[in-house]
């Protein structure tokens, strides 16, 4: 059904917000995140799996908070992300652009649209980073997955996210996140209007 509201191109919307937002230097950002990861690793005594899980949790709580910001800034009501497809597009085109200034796109949509891959051109988190041997298996940017998951959950889209290709871990040359739909939580309407 073609609703009258005319959608602006999400990429443009994202870019606009990115322009609007005040920013911090990329180095500072990358290093801060790096420090975070190091600290978590230290607390976990270099237990890589535990660290991945922890990063994921951190990301999730970030996502659940940040989604509010996103909705208000883009002015897209929560219904913009009702369908999984819209949600993914929003994440790839708008959200990543406006929070990380990253150009990203979705690809590899599955047969019945419940799974796709978000491919990022760059990744400010992973700047300068090079994983030493003893940390192989560490999913450095797992917080990103967590954030996406958290944000989508906040708009009633339960998903699972995982890195499909991660240059740091030495597979693939671009960061790509595979998102899989678990379910769309039904909103509870008042029974009769």
């Amino acid at each position, binding site marked *: 059904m073609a609703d009258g509201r005319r959608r602006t191109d999400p990429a443009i919307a994202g870019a606009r917000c990115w322009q609007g937002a005040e920013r911090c230097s990329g180095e500072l950002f990358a290093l801060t995140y790096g420090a975070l990861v190091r600290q978590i690793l230290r*607390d*976990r*005594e*270099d*237990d890589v*799996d*535990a660290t*991945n*899980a922890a990063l*994921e*949790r951190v990301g999730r709580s970030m996502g659940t908070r940040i989604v509010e910001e996103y909705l208000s800034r883009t002015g897209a009501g929560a219904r913009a992300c009702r369908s999984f497809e819209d949600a993914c597009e929003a994440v790839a085109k708008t959200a990543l652009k406006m929070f990380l200034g990253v150009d990203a796109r979705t690809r590899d949509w*599955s*047969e*019945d649209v*419940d*799974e796709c891959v978000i491919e990022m051109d760059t990744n400010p988190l992973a700047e300068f980073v090079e994983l030493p041997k003893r940390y192989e298996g560490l999913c450095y940017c797992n917080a990103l997955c967590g954030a996406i998951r958290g944000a989508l959950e906040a708009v009633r889209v339960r998903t*699972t996210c995982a890195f499909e290709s991660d240059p740091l871990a030495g597979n693939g040359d671009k960061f790509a996140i595979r998102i*899989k739909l678990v*379910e*769309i939580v*039904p*909103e509870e*309407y008042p*029974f*009769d*209007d």
Partner: protein
Amino acid sequence: MSSPRPLDAASRVRASHAPVVCVLDEREVDRRTDGSGFSEDASTSELKSLVSLFRAVSSVKGLNETLRCDGERASKVTIVRELRARFVSEDGATSGTRADAEASGTAACEKECFNAQAMNERAVMDAREESLDDCVRRAREEATTSGRFNGYFDANARALTFNECEAFDHPVGAILCARVRERTAEDVVRVFEDLKGRFRRLPVFGTGAGDPEACFGMALVWDARGGTSRERAEELLKNVQRAGAPDCELLIVNSDESGSFASGVLWSEHAETIIARAAIEHSGASASSAAEGKYMSSDDVERARAYVRSFVTRTLIPHIERKLFALSTQIYNTRKGFKNQFKSFWGRSTTTASRPEAERGYRSPESQIRLAGDLAFGIGDYETALAHYKLVQSDYKSQNAWKPLASSYEAMAHVYLMTRHTRNTVDVKKDIDHAYDSAMLALSKYELSGGHSDIHRVHVEMLKTRSAIEHAEALQLIGAYRDAHAPLVVISAFDDSELRAALLLERAAFAFVRCEPPMLRKFASYMVLAGVRYVRAGAIAAATRCYAYALPATSDHGWNAAKEHLNTTLGQLCARVGYTRASLEFFRDAVKHASHLTDDEQRVRLSSLEEYAGKYEKETPAEKRDAMADELACPLPGMNIKNVHVTFADDRESSESSADNGEEAWEAIERGGVVPQNLLSGATGANWLNNGGRKIEIDQTAVCASGEDVKVDVEFTNPLRLPLDMKNLRLLWEFTPSLGEIMTNEGGSESIGSLVEAKVEEVTLAPESTREIRLSITPHSSGILRVRGVAWTVGTTGFLRGRRHFDVAAPRTRRGPDGEWLRDVPKHKRLIFNVCETMPRCEATLEGVPAQALDGELRRIDLIISNVTQPMAKWIRVRLPKSVLRPVDVSHVPLGEPAIHRNASHDDFVRGATGGGNSEDNLLDGDGAVYALSEWENLGSGSPIRWPLWFHPRAVGRATVRICVCYQPEPPAPKLLTHRTIRIFERVDVAPSFSARASSMPSPSHPLARVVRLSLKSASTQTKVFDIESVRLGSRKDGVKYNLVPLVKDASASRVIRPGETIETLLKCSPTSDTNASELFDFPNAILAERATSLFAFHDSDRGQATMKHFAKGRGDVITNGLMVTWSTGDGALVGAQHIRDVVELSRCADTARTPFSQRSEVFWTIDYPSIIKMRQNSSFTQSNVVLKARNESDEMLDIEFVADATRSAPANVENGGWSLDKDENAWQNRETSFPSDDQVRRRPIPLPPGKPFIWVGPVRRVARNVAPGQVFEFPLTIACFAKGDHILDGYTLSWSTSSKNLTVNTMTASPRAGREHSAPRVADPADAPGAPHVFTVV
């Protein structure tokens, strides 16, 4: 030989420049003449010779002699405060050969370099952990004390002294000693005379190099042990003095009868002695023993000192003064002053041009200048000396006399060195460098000039070596340590003797360690170079020392290659000396750093390591060794002690890897009813990994049952390039039985029949690989089991044993009682096991689960539970995900949440179940249904249960099946382990079959009646043919029941979905009165009822999970539970069902009894049309005429307008295309006539995605004006059909408005249902037509 502290360069120079006084002793002469060697008593207890006596007292202090020795400026005086004469024996005053130097030099450093024990094992081993500072301290200490360097090169220097061109070596005086015997004074005087003669015949004067004019002192020596009496000696002295030697004096030796070494003089302590030592030694005298001259009494020495003093003051100094005066005046006359410069210029150019060396006797001017310089130097008048040296150099240069030139340069350097305090260091350094460099240059020229004779080359080499060493020493003296190495290294580069090169390099290294801050890396590298040379020279001890020095310097990060090299070499050296222990240690370290080597080299290292491990073990008795430490130190293979992974007998994994599905999910499931509540309410969840009371929870134990083996995965790394086979690989455990004392296998090998057995493995690690190895251990009794570590044996010979103890890394996430961080060892890393009594263990598997499944298919699988242990397992409960699995036997009802008490029977279960009023909805976990069947109350060993289940995946993608089985042991159950669960985890990839969508429209026949349009779309990837069997509405306990009637002409035809097709089916659902109507329509050859019912059970079970339910909410809809379409594949192999949760209600019900009057529309209309339209062959479409009859129900004139909506399209399977549209919709008006007639079909219609089954053609916009009330107006219309199938005649709008003159109607902008005001037109949809939908079939 006690080697005294070596002199520093300055005192060395000073000593060597002291005026030489030759001592001629009558007795020596006799010895030489009558070949009788040393008398035996002399060799031990007596003085070597009088020389050493004089040397002991040679330095005369406290003088105050003023000398006027400058010819040109008589006023200039030099004051001598102290003078030390340099006493040489008659044969000492000759230069030696290279061979002698080699011999004595080697002898000098024999002890420190070649004596293997010089470097003892302890010292070598200490070097391994020595700290840098200690190393530096040690090195600096040794640099200043070690005698080997000087010891060796003094020989070289000594061999070069007394050569023709160094005047300071030429004796300026002599002391003639006659012995007291039975003879007359005349004889004595005669003796003096021929001693003089001997002096004149010394080789130095023989060559004419030295100036024979010297001063003489005479002494009469009375040996107290020589047999003659003292009185006689006194008397003889008087006679001699009278007889023509007036200044002769008496010296007394050996007057101390007791031989108590009264004088206490160490004869070897004195500068000259040290310098001349080399000479002494190779002149055959045995090493000076402490007993030397023990008969000398102290007043003998005093007497000698007095004599020397008087000799120096009365004879020597005046002589030097005279000589200097003469020389300087002469020099002044010949060379100084303007005219002389001029004359000498000519003179030299003619006469003195390049005079052959032989003729450069002492009379030649330059020799005299040199002599003057040296004498001046001798008495400490350095300026004069320097002036003379500078003066003479020009001469030497001009006549290519390279050797003297060089030596004069060196002398110059000596001056600089002596006067170093008067100027600043930088200048001094600059001058010294310049002097020695030019000396070196001159020497090189000398080498060239001298032809290729070997002797010559060797000689020059000696000279060079000496000058280089002097240079280095001088630099070090003025503190320029950083540059001191250069000359030494240069010399060592072109040196053929390994030993000498080694010594030089070592010296250079020491120079580095002495600078501030110490240059350790330089130090280390030069030490290594030296070490290499030492090894070649066969000086093992020295080599070991060098490498040991280098070791601490390379201790920091990196340096792999260096470390490896050092350790290997040290290992080999120690092996040669026989320090097995040390070499073992070194080989170990070597292997640690061997990763960069080629595999052959590594093999060698490894084998030598093994060899020495074995050797050590054989040599040293067990009690001496610390076997444990050795094993811990074993370098191979690398093991990750931080990371382990424990797996239990029932292959229970516990991974914390993925946060969303994993432990948490299982926890939820197990708490979701399968495990009885009262068991769950234990300290921690009765999950059998983290079970155990609080107190054990502190040290974080895991629970296991005795008799079941625990598997521990350990990670090994093989750093080498060759495969590594490990034998006897086993876990180290420590077991505390519940009764009985602690036991362990730490000690040695497995003891058979112990309460715990660790399985022994044998594995081979691939080169440069990391591998996880699974070790298992089995406790046979209850108690606490700790897994301590791992032990193994590497290599072919069993000697290389290794072991490690676990230190599991765990996150510190909890605060302890007093705020410190506590480790939370994750469950799969816990190594303390709480072994409880034997438990029953069951295994459960799913049979017949396909890897691939079709979406919605129905499959029968079996769950098999069997008890693999002896004891009985009780009260088995199974939890199924009811959305995917349900029991085949419908009589199996899931339980609610029964309260299970200890030894409760199964009836209690059921009672609890029924009592709990269990509808499936109030189960704890959303998708779980728990079953507990009566026949599962007891499960003996070896009697498997087979439970048939339906498997019905209903979502495309990866369907995960989690089944959880819970059972309990016979009561009383062990406290720690009240129950067990089995987790079954299956993944099935579900491929899409076809997608079903449904929409319902109200049907006018009855307010609740609906027409449902099913559109079934085969998945794009699908190749199967699906045969639609039946359609069934989701049942509803309360509320209307329906009868289903297909609105299809031939109901008998079976519905088939071919790949890529979409078919549509229309069903009319009309409400019926009988309450148990099967709301079901079977197409021909429907599937078996029981399957259908089971499928329907699935459909019903997940009521309430409709995802998009809200679309239908509040619309007065009727089909709330969706509907189910059963199907079978064309070949009938598979049956299944698609479930449609949400039937979209298209639009409000049209006029019905319910509709209020105001809502009724003024126009009723219907359409006359052929219900079946035959498709014409060889044509893409068929036209057909229909008539729309519209009746004005209202009571006023209406304008009715029919508009075919061109854009509306119903999805359909278009076999051969649809009709193409123009851009603008108005094209329809102009298209009226241009429509091709049947017979002249030219162009095939262009496919119009998604294609239309039919479109309105012909005039598609008709207006009927002024239709009177009650009048029926007929619109003749035409449709063109393209597609076979059942279609609804729609895609138009009918609109009307009260007609008035000049009223223009614009339907497009009209908003539907806009109130009831007149002017605005009213628009109606096809669905609003009474009797709609109008369905026709194209065949």
